[in-house]
């Protein structure tokens, strides 16, 4: 402890950057490596002495995934199911969150809130069997509707709680003055609460989108028709088919990440604030 204050500070910051670097490598290397593998020619992928960078980069793996498989179809399915379920969950979530935040004096509202918290604890595997039967009886296996509905069930509780947390921070006076001006409740939500809540709705939506894009188990269980598979389950199927073709598998992996990466760079700020709103207030 004979170090001067300045030396100590410098030492501390060196250590900080060192560990930050390690943590970043830990986070990013797998994706980096997937990309480097995807652009390698086949004989270099399966080499016992792999090099970091290939001298002969190729887009062959990407071409093969995009044009020789159902990948574009999976992509379309993922977009339809994810967007559909996010819109539906936001619609249901906004209404329920408004009730939880502003109308909690009505009997039963609080019970719903507690129910939504408890819903987080239900194992998905536990629900898979009865949900499978319900979907089978309704003829909704292998359908967009069935997937959108089942994704929504699991998204609504968390979205509602995130939005409720945000609605709670909007001063009630704004509403009261609007009420005096003769606004009805629907008008109030559409014209006042929604515009004020855009950041919260966007971040809740992103949260739901990340989950929907990644969703695996429900689609894996409810879909058997290959043309109805989403990216997650479709690409999982590739793993069985191309057991050793890691170049192509990594190309598929990278292709799934690209849309998220694009969305992510634009709205990182929203995502961070939404997550923290949900986790610190929930």
């Amino acid at each position: 402890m004979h170090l001067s204050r300045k030396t100590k500070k410098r030492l501390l910051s060196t250590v900080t950057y060192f560990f930050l670097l390690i943590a970043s490598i830990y986070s990013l290397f797998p994706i980096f490596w997937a990309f480097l593998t995807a652009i390698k020619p086949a004989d270099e992928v399966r080499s016992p002495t792999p090099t970091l960078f290939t001298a002969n980069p190729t887009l062959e793996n990407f071409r093969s995934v995009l044009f020789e498989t159902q990948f574009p179809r999976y992509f379309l399915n993922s977009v339809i199911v994810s967007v559909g379920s996010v819109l539906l969950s936001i619609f249901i979530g906004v209404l329920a969150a408004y009730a939880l935040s502003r109308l909690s004096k009505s009997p039963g509202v609080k019970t719903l809130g507690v129910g939504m918290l408890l819903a987080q604890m239900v194992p998905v595997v536990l629900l898979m069997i009865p949900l499978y039967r319900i979907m089978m009886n309704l003829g909704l296996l292998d359908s967009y509707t069935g997937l959108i509905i089942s994704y929504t069930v699991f998204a609504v509780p968390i979205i509602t709680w995130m939005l409720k947390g945000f609605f709670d921070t909007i001063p009630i006076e704004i509403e009261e003055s609007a009420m005096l001006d003769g606004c009805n409740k629907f008008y109030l939500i559409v014209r006042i609460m929604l515009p004020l809540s855009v950041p919260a709705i966007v971040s809740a939506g992103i949260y739901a989108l990340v989950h929907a894009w990644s969703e695996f188990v429900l689609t894996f269980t409810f879909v058997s028709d290959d043309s109805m598979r989403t990216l997650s389950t479709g690409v999982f199927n590739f793993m069985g088919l191309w057991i050793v073709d890691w170049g192509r598998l990594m190309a598929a992996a990278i292709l799934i990440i690209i849309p998220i990466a694009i969305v992510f760079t634009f709205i990182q700020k929203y995502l961070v604030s939404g997550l923290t709103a949900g986790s610190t207030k929930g």
Partner: protein
Amino acid sequence: MISFLKKHTIAYVFMLPAVVFLILLLLVPIINVFIKSFYESNLLIVGDDLFIGLQNFINVMQDPLFWTNVKNSIVYTFGSVGGEYVVGLGTAILLNQNIKGRAFFRGAMIIPWVVPIVVAGMTWRWMLNPDYGIINVLLMNIGILDQSINWLGSETTAMFSVIWVNVWRSFPFYTISFLAVLQTINKNELEAAEIDGANMFQKFWNITFPKLKGISIILIVLHLIWTFNNFDFIWILTEGGPLNATETLAIATYKEAFMKYHYGTASAISVLMVVILIGMMALYFWLQNKQEAKGDN
């Protein structure tokens, strides 16, 4: 009555869609599972199920595989949550320092969380591959390993590897949550402690850590539940193998229902999962209370 309706109509109209969804697709199915756990029921056979009382539970508990599943679930859950907590807290503390390029580092550390689980699983399966996987190659080049290890394919390392991948995918959620709380801590308080002669660890232990308690409880409880119930990570990485070394209760439920079509037995396993989960939560809060009571003395 009319005035009651008039007063509360709006609330009920707003709640209706959520209530319909949750009752029809959560509550009814849950009740269904509890009921079916007392029946002999097969997904392939249409017809009346046979009431057999506790027979499903007896069968399940007499099967030694069930106890392996329980052990695996517990190891997987606590290993994952412990690892995520440590990595999440560590990275949050790093990001909370006065550093340049915080946005970049923070972005880098959220990436794993937005990567779909299938992509995470596939990428790590490739990296952990015994023949050409980069992890083995690196470890052998450095001289840590003499020969390559089949990380996901050998009974001794499979569980560790699955936990490792799960920690990689899940820690950013902790990082972001901890960071949000760390940024609310008053710098003056830390400086005052420093002037009073507190070192870094004392400052952390006495000032920072107590403020992280609330968020820690939320994170730990949620992730204990989510990890215990998790299906996709293990399924994508190992499908429960090799030789059931990574078969958790969630995987067992799936196999029982969708590969053997024993709906009744699968329901019994999931009911037991809920029981274990409630037990775990009760234990957690009991320990929590005990610790708090000790702290008050």
